[in-house]
């Protein structure tokens, strides 16, 4: 199964075929609790410690819908310009696999909560592509398997598997596009841009952590090719395990090249699930796809239908944030950025964070400098994305405010931010517990100045004699005595005052 697949040169693929894409994105909602029970919805944790009879599928346990999750599902549907169902139900998707202890997944089948929408996706060069949305439906996540024996962590050759159900039952929204046709050469780029836009939108809505590295945003890429001049879709493959935005683009491109070689060689594409392999950018076959009928869907008898009133839907529409790309356009104008400067901000993931920091009251210049410089360094050092740093735009805005009001120097401010990143609480708490306030009380400073002058009478004499630059040594001593928490400019003024120079 490790045979290297033949690949067709990409330019030739484009010349001979039209690609058709279909993207399925699973989003884990960041609700406090799971979809159908009150267990905590948190990433990781000791195995099987966020479980209860309902999510373990124990006999007699009954599910109850998480109202907040339904609300998020409707908001996501609205943000994707979808119709919201007047009335819809959950369904049981029956299959035997140990990651689902109930032996069925509670999902939605032919009655999704949201359908027929679109997302206008901005590409890098500014062009906007409309991706049609087929549906967005509610379901629950599965447990996590650990395969033991054989090649490490791989299901093939494993002797047995170990199951952790902490994730089983976490609310999931599956967003499915309609077939994306006519993308041609730009298909891989459009796939990445779509997932990027979706991620940014969901993040702005505050409905999910959208972390691909932790699986709270997952993309399955369906790819098929049809020979130029024909209009019947070819057989598709579905590539899973695509764990980064870059991988979305690579996986689509790889599958296009692989399909091209198979088809050109007179072969046929098998409809199957394939797994993307981050290490070399290839895909490998997974389990054969069961047909839809095999899941024997039927309406979930333990959950009553969802019938969102139009009033509720309109109320939720009112809570939608400004889409990130529109906000970017606005900030570009407001801050007078060139297209390139804006793109840099967007590509480093700083644009939305800077904008949110400005919304929280900071000056654009200050907000930009914090995110682009110090915080970007911190993110790089931790090897995480900027948005995943454990600090919020509101907290950054507060630090900026403390500097503006003179309560913190820039140096102290960086220490406060370090404290926030280390989980020591809000900026004000860090200032308090680490004792980082600027010593602005002249009485305290004067004591330090007097001590420093007394300790270095020769320097004091020089200053008195007109050598003002000698004051630097005293400033240094005072800064040392106050552990850097004094305003150097004020210290200098006080020294000169004291010696009467």
């Amino acid at each position: 199964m490790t045979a290297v697949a033949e690949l067709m040169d990409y330019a030739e693929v484009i010349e001979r075929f039209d690609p058709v894409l279909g993207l399925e994105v699973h989003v884990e909602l960041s609700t406090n609790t799971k979809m159908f029970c009150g267990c905590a919805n948190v990433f990781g944790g000791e195995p099987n410690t966020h479980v209860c009879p309902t999510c373990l599928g124990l006999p007699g346990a009954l599910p109850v819908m998480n109202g907040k999750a339904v609300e998020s599902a409707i908001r996501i549907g609205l943000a994707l310009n979808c119709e919201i169902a007047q009335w819809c139900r959950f369904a049981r998707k029956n299959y035997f696999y140990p990651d689902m202890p109930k032996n069925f997944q509670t999902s939605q089948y032919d009655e999704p909560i949201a359908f027929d929408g679109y997302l206008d996706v901005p590409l890098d060069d500014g062009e906007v592509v409309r991706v049609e949305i087929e549906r967005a439906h509610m379901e629950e996540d599965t447990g996590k398997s650990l395969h033991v024996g054989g090649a490490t962590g791989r299901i093939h050759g494993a002797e047995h598997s170990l199951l952790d159900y902490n994730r089983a039952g976490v609310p999931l929204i599956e967003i499915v596009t309609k077939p994306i046709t006519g993308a041609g050469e730009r298909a891989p780029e459009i796939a990445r841009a779509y997932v990027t836009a979706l991620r940014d939108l969901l993040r702005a809505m505050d409905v999910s952590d959208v972390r691909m590295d932790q699986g709270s945003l997952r993309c399955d890429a369906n790819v098929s090719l049809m020979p130029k001049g024909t209009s019947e879709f070819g057989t598709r493959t579905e590539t899973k395990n695509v764990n980064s935005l870059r991988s979305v683009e690579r996986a689509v491109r790889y599958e296009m090249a692989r399909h091209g070689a198979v088809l050109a060689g007179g072969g046929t594409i098998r409809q199957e699930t394939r797994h993307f392999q981050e290490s070399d950018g290839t895909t490998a076959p997974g389990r054969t796809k069961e047909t839809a009928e095999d899941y024997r869907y039927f309406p979930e008898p333990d959950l009553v239908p969802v019938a969102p009133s139009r009033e509720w839907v309109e109320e939720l529409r009112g809570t939608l944030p400004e889409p990130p790309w529109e906000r970017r356009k606005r900030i570009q104008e407001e801050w007078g950025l060139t297209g390139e400067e804006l793109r840099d901000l967007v590509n480093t993931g700083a644009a939305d964070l800077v904008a949110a920091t400005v919304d929280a009251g900071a000056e654009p210049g200050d907000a930009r400098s914090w995110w682009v410089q110090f915080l970007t360094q911190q993110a790089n050092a931790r090897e995480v994305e900027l948005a995943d740093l454990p600090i919020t735009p509101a907290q950054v805005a507060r630090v900026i405010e403390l500097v503006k009001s003179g309560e913190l120097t820039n140096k102290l401010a960086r220490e406060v931010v370090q404290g926030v990143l280390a989980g020591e609480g809000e900026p004000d708490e860090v200032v308090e517990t680490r004792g980082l306030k600027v010593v602005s009380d002249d009485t305290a400073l004067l004591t330090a100045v007097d001590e420093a002058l007394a300790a270095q009478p020769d320097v004091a004499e020089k200053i008195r004699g007109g050598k003002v630059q000698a004051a630097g040594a005293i400033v240094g001593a005072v800064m040392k005595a106050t552990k850097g928490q004094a305003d150097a400019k004020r210290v200098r003024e006080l020294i000169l005052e004291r010696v009467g120079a």
Partner: protein
Amino acid sequence: MPNISRDEVAHLAKLARLAVTDEELDVFAGQLDQILDAVAKVGEVAGDEIPPTSHAVPLTNVFRADEIRPGLSQEQALAGAPAAEEGRFRVPRILGEEQ
């Protein structure tokens, strides 16, 4: 009129992980036919204007507040497991029969 074949019964039995003997396949095919016939009768009376009934109670939108409730400890969760290892449920290897 529905007419469920022996092969379809065998397929369903496989999906449901039921061990069904050859004789049982014949018996169940006949019985399932009768059940499907009975259900099909409902289709004769129910028109498009009658919504399908999946619930006997006229309720919608039964929601729970998004508040954490205590669940089971790891020990309690694993108490009924035939086998456990490292705080997890241990299951026989997953792939094998199909692939």
